[in-house]
């Protein structure tokens, strides 16, 4: 009996252990289907191309919201009560370090930087032609520079991440660099990008960053550092590539992607794939229901009466830029230039967001010329914009008057495009302008907060400071 027991138990154990050992190792190591583990990717040129496309695609959410940081705080646009929870704090200058909008923006910029870094880290692995490789490198550097430009304008000096972060510990090693260091990196990236990128594309590459875009951005970057000499020389080369000027209403709207005025834009695609823009959903006045588009909007980035009144008589840009909708006693000056009527019920717009336009470059060039004492030449550039807008050409102005006129022209030409707030800061006039605006203008929704010079920089998001104690806060927050 006893031995029989032992034998049977032994057999059982044997069967079990055979069953076990035969499948133990591989059984619990599954390869996921439908997703690609990172360690098997980036091995072909196609992988690099698609990763670069993925980096571009991360621009879409950024420029869906760019108005919130570049336009809403300024005297150009505002929110209404119904969108108070979304961007009220930007409108009223009451943002805090805990603001989720700022945290999201910070994250979105670094996401694009990470995608660009990943391309740059892996681009040398797979075999491909040198021309192609240089093209990918140039585009990735352009995207990275564009993001750091946004970051440095909003937050000042920020951590410079130039490679993929692969471990948690590594993520905590970054300090805030000085704004000058960040600008130097931007200039380096753009110079290198401009050297290798083509001036134009054909086919489905249209819309990618060109050498012109890199130079245009570089010119703008110089302007933001008041490096007017460098700005003038580089912007001169860019403005030389501008074609005949395009009427304002041919620049915006459906089916006008990549027109002659566009140097670089974020390419949106409607059609319900989640790849369209949210401009209609954000900008259409909420009380309008579905009378303007099939989308019920959030009344964001609506023009102020001040902006509406600042258009000179006869300016043919007004009707393209601003739509007027009345609801009871309220008047909405909504951002019509970004809205076309047939935006579908799925809220996805097809039109693009201009990041760099020739009109922008020409006005920057005019500004640089004027600052360098070449006021007459500056007015020539300015008049390119004015005459195309059915306005009289300016001549014989003093340098100071020319400065005022050019700045005003920028305000009108680029309204709602996310430039005004940064321009006011760049010019050092934002405290004065916003104080006046606060005094003269009762916003639709609550009072504008205290206007202090510290507002020139947004605060570093609380979350980031809490996670990485090396980060310091901007003054005043």
């Amino acid at each position, binding site marked *: 009996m006893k031995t029989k027991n032992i034998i049977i138990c032994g057999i059982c154990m044997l069967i079990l252990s055979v069953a076990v050992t035969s499948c133990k190792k591989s059984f619990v190591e599954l390869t996921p289907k439908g997703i690609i583990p990172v360690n098997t990717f980036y091995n072909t040129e196609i992988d690099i191309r698609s990763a670069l496309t993925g980096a571009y695609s991360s621009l879409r959410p950024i420029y869906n919201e760019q108005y919130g940081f570049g336009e809403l705080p300024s005297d150009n646009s505002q929110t209404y009560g119904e969108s108070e929870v979304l961007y009220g704090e930007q409108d009223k200058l009451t943002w805090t370090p805990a603001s989720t909008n700022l945290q999201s923006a910070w994250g979105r910029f670094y996401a694009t930087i990470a*995608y660009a870094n990943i391309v740059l880290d892996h681009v040398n692995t797979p075999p491909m032609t040198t021309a192609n490789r240089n093209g990918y490198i140039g585009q990735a550097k352009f995207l990275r520079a564009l993001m750091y430009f946004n970051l440095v304008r909003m937050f000042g000096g920020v951590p410079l991440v130039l490679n993929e972060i692969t471990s948690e510990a590594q993520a905590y090693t970054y300090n805030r660099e000085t704004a000058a260091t960040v600008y130097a990196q931007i200039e380096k990236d753009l110079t290198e990008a401009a050297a290798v990128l083509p001036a134009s594309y054909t086919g489905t590459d249209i819309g990618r960053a060109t050498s012109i875009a890199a130079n245009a951005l570089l010119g703008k970057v110089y302007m933001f550092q008041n490096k007017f000499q460098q700005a003038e020389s580089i912007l001169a080369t860019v403005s030389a590539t501008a074609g005949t000027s395009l009427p304002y209403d041919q620049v915006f709207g459906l089916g006008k992607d990549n027109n002659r005025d566009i140097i670089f834009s974020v390419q949106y695609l409607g059609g319900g794939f989640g790849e369209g823009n949210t401009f209609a959903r954000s900008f259409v006045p909420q009380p309008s229901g579905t009378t303007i588009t099939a989308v019920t909007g959030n009344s964001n980035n609506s023009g102020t009466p001040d902006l509406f009144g600042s258009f000179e008589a006869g300016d043919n840009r007004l009707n393209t830029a601003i739509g007027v909708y009345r609801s009871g006693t309220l008047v909405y000056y909504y951002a019509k230039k970004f809205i076309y009527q047939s935006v579908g019920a799925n809220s996805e717009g097809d039109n693009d967001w201009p990041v760099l336009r020739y009109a922008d470059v020409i006005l920057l060039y005019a500004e640089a010329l004027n600052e360098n004492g070449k006021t007459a030449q500056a007015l020539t550039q300015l008049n390119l914009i004015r005459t195309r807008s059915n306005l009289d050409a300016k001549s014989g102005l003093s340098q100071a008057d020319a400065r005022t006129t050019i700045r005003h022209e920028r305000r009108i030409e680029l309204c709602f495009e996310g430039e005004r707030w940064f321009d006011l800061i760049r010019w050092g006039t934002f405290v004065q302008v916003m104080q006046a605006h606060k005094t003269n203008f009762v916003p639709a929704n609550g009072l504008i907060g205290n206007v202090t010079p510290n507002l020139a920089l947004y605060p570093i998001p609380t*979350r980031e400071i809490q996670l990485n104690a090396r980060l310091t806060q901007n003054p005043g927050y």
Partner: protein
Amino acid sequence: MYKIFTALLCGDIPCYTQKILRVMRLTIILIMIAVLQVSAGTFAQQVSINVKDAPVRTVLSQLTKQTGYNFICDANIINSISPVTIKFKNTPLQRVLEACFATQSVELLFGDHATIVIKRKLQVVLPVAQVISVSGKITDNKGVGLPGVSVLIKGTKTGVVSDVNGNYTIKAPDQRAVLVFSFIGMVSQEVSVGDKTVINIVMADTPQSLGDVVVVGYGTQSRTTVTSSITKVEGKNIGNQPVSTPGEALAGLAAGVQVQSDQGGKPGAAPTIRVRGVSSLSSSNDPLYVVDGYPLETAANFNLINPSDIESIEVLKDAASAAIYGSRAANGVVLVTTKRGKAGKTVFSVSAYTGIQSVNKYIDVLSKDQYVEQVKALSRIKNLQYPSILDGDISGLPDVDWQKEIFRTAPISSFEFNASGGSEKVRFSASAGIFKQKGVLIGTEYTRYNTRINLDADIVKNVKFGFSISPSYSEQFRQPSSGQASGAGANPSDYIIGVPGLLADLNLPSPLNQTLTFQPIVPVYRANGDFAQPYDRELNYNLSPTSVFSASNFYNPVGILSQSINRSRAFRTLSNAFLEYAPIPGLKLKTYIGATLENEQIHGYVPGSMAYSSAPTASYASPQLAGIFASDNVRNSFDWVWENTATYDKQLGKHHFNLLGLFSAQKYESQINYTAGLPGTFITTSVESPLASPNTVGTELFDANTFVSYAGRFTYDYDKKYLFTAAVRQDGSSRFGLNNKYAVFPSFSLGWRLAEEPFLKEPLAKIGINEFKLRGGYGRTGNANIGSFTYVNAIALNRNYASGSNRIFGTQQTGFANPDLTWEKNDQTSIGTDIGLLQNKIVLTFDYFIRNSNGMLLNKALPLDVGYTTTYQANLGKLQNKGFEFTANTNFKLGAVTWNANANFSTYKTKVLDLGGPNALPAVRAINGWNNVYQVQVGQPLGIMYGYEIVGVFRNAADLANNPRVTSGNNIGDSMIKDQNGDGKIDVNDMTALGHGLPDFTYGLTNSFQYKNFDLSILMQGVQGVNIINGNNRQTITGNHNQNSLSKYFNNYFDPAFPNRDVVYPSPISTGSLPGPALSSLAVENGSYLRVRNITLGYRLNENLLKKIALQSARFYVTAQNPFLITNYSGYNPEANIMGGDPTTPGVDQGTYPTARTIIFGINFGF
């Protein structure tokens, strides 16, 4: 258990001559006969035997070896019979036995479980002075005759046993004689003879008591020797409730098991079930469901079981009992045992019920006259326009109570039949049923078809085979029922599914929230039969040709509910089979294979005639192609499990050992295919499918995981007095990081039955205690519900970019590799005691536990400059649950009334111990617009609701001057907020705990009564010390001039025209009351409740009547489900919780489905 009665032992143990012992034995034997459902069958098995002058016990012993049968033999017979000489070859067992006992007048009875009973023919029990002959029939509560019931004349050893049909006849000495009827597993009864000559007896089942056998992981155990915390729920308490899922029926039945029907009466929606609190903040807190030994991949497959197929449910609550399930047992284990066949006559039964459900409460909102008055008042205060038609005579305007339009009285019905029975070799139980429930909210419906076959076969000696298959099909129609009128804040499970990454899910407006604010002056239908919309021109409610009065996102809720389709059809088959071999006594080797096949199709369709945000002007008369939404997705999954167990059970004197060894492997794979038409591209209204669009999009998703496990368990008891169990399991799973694929889960528990100690037995008996067990244990369990490939970083496809109008394919890196990712581990220490009083007429159970969850999976925040990901999952947090549970079971006979009661009470407290660095997780919203309400903080319990405490309204300048104000300033009419920190200003630092969403305690009380042919059971269940955020308030008391409000808002807000009015709510133009969008105390309500869950009254027809219509039994009953609710909560359902099982945001109600009151009438027939 049977062994002690076998012939072997009967022979080995000296048979005492004391008569008293013999009587005891006889009684035991008689009881055994009863248990075994004896029938005088034939013993077809063939045996060979050749003995000379051998004692009978030797013969029986040999026969046992040959046949596997155990013999139960009256000690008297064994002792008095002389040795036999017999020789047979391949002779039927019966003939051999007859030859054996040729000299005695014996009866041979065959029971199931391979047992043969040998007892003297009844005449051996000679009645004493026979005076009165009493006869009658003994039946169970279903009216089925009970054979083998012992009928004794009290105070004597005279007795008889009922026959196969339950009939008995006994001679009583005189009229003072008392008959004692007893049957194991049933409540004994005593009846005075008096002048009666016919005494019919209905025996009632003994309620749950310490004597039961309970199912434990991979086996069963006598409750007497269980050392861990296991709650058993009898199937009949689940089967008798008219609910769509078995989980709902568990509410109030088991201590430590919290059942929250957060979806109310939503047909087919499973409740949230928690065992002993919560263990995880990010992973599932659902227990592991094990059905007939099969560990299910999802709780959904449990909720598909027909409740009346369930024999019993055992909940393994503590880690000591659950740890044998290792990495999936952290939230407790629910063991479901379905009904299996018993040998004997085949029993057919048919059950059916039908009934109606209705909403038991409507919320008071304004009707027309008050509404119009309020519109005018609010418009005046807000300086807004209202339709001029309201200034005239409004008597002709509609006056609609929109709640009555979206709710209905809905039918519920069930029909099922089953058959069970079999021979000693093959037994079966088969059932089929249809359950159909329409929801009280129009457009919701659930239908389920179930079939099940359970088969058991004893193939050859020592080999058993079992097989189960249970295909089921269900169809559920869902409607949005959470979130606010616009659809914001809804539970994603209410969405109509789109195509992940390509087409967003469709989130329709919540009709439940919307009806409370929908204008009563808007009719439901237009004259042409179309649904009326508040902006319809002909209603004259517009302000101007371009300006509407109604809120722009309000669409007729009846139109949405009666037109949108969100339908799930699921076909599931659970099947398993086992082979068990017992090579030597006590050793069982078992191999078990199970498989689950699932196919679920979800169809979503919004017709062009439905008005909603994508097609505001759609109607039947003018359908809008732009509004059409059509999607289909199909999920196919296959899961298999293979388990091999070896158990060895051995009694050595007073030492009893049980050993278990286990190897198990399980693999799950699924694929979901999504298809949808792109909205805006549909070209016809007549095909309700994505096919109606030439532009369809689709994608697919895969999932897979594997588990491989080894486990062992050692159970030991000494004389059933000192008890010990230890178990260990090692699990490996594909779900974890490369560095941490395996983990070990140990447990042990101890028990001591004090009442078995000689020195304590007497004193305890004096105070009525017959059982007193102390037990305690420790164990570690894991939570593997972390998703399948969480640890990898990967390339996400379809991150595309455009070039003009071309789409260019792109990819992005996602995730953050964590090769160290591993199980969440729960360490639970539990102590408890079981006390039996008055021979277990009262059984009390107390339990206390401390449960520490370590290495909780949390999304660890990464600095955003990592870029491609913002968080990654890591094992970081620690959470503690401490709790106490109490259960009392009683079982009394009060005259003719049998009364059983079960009372249970449970409470637990949670405390966050660690979050891996930060002091708190980011605060989250309760509903859309009430932000930062819940925050998981170290040192705090879960579920605390933070917000501002409103103390009044600023009614004048003096109020403004004398009270703290928000930093941006207050106006007259704003709410006054309590300055919690006393710094003289109101800011975010004045947020305070306004309530908590996890209850102080929960309790349940089941009472069942039996009187003659009537049975009555009442189940009550309650939750105490809990708060609910009434999220409907965000819309219903905010003073929107174009929406309806709660009745209590009427003239109860600050109106500058009546500044002295004593009001609760701020001015409708107040915007800056709170420092930001946050919760205020006005919306936090007491959510305690006591609910009568179920009252069932049944009546069993008399047998005489039944015989005429050829029925075995017939019972009629009426049941009221949720008939009464006592609560102060003003919403529909105090159990509501928008986000269902999310442990961090409990107690939020906004547009959630109400609980239905159900009245049914049912019948059970047995043939």
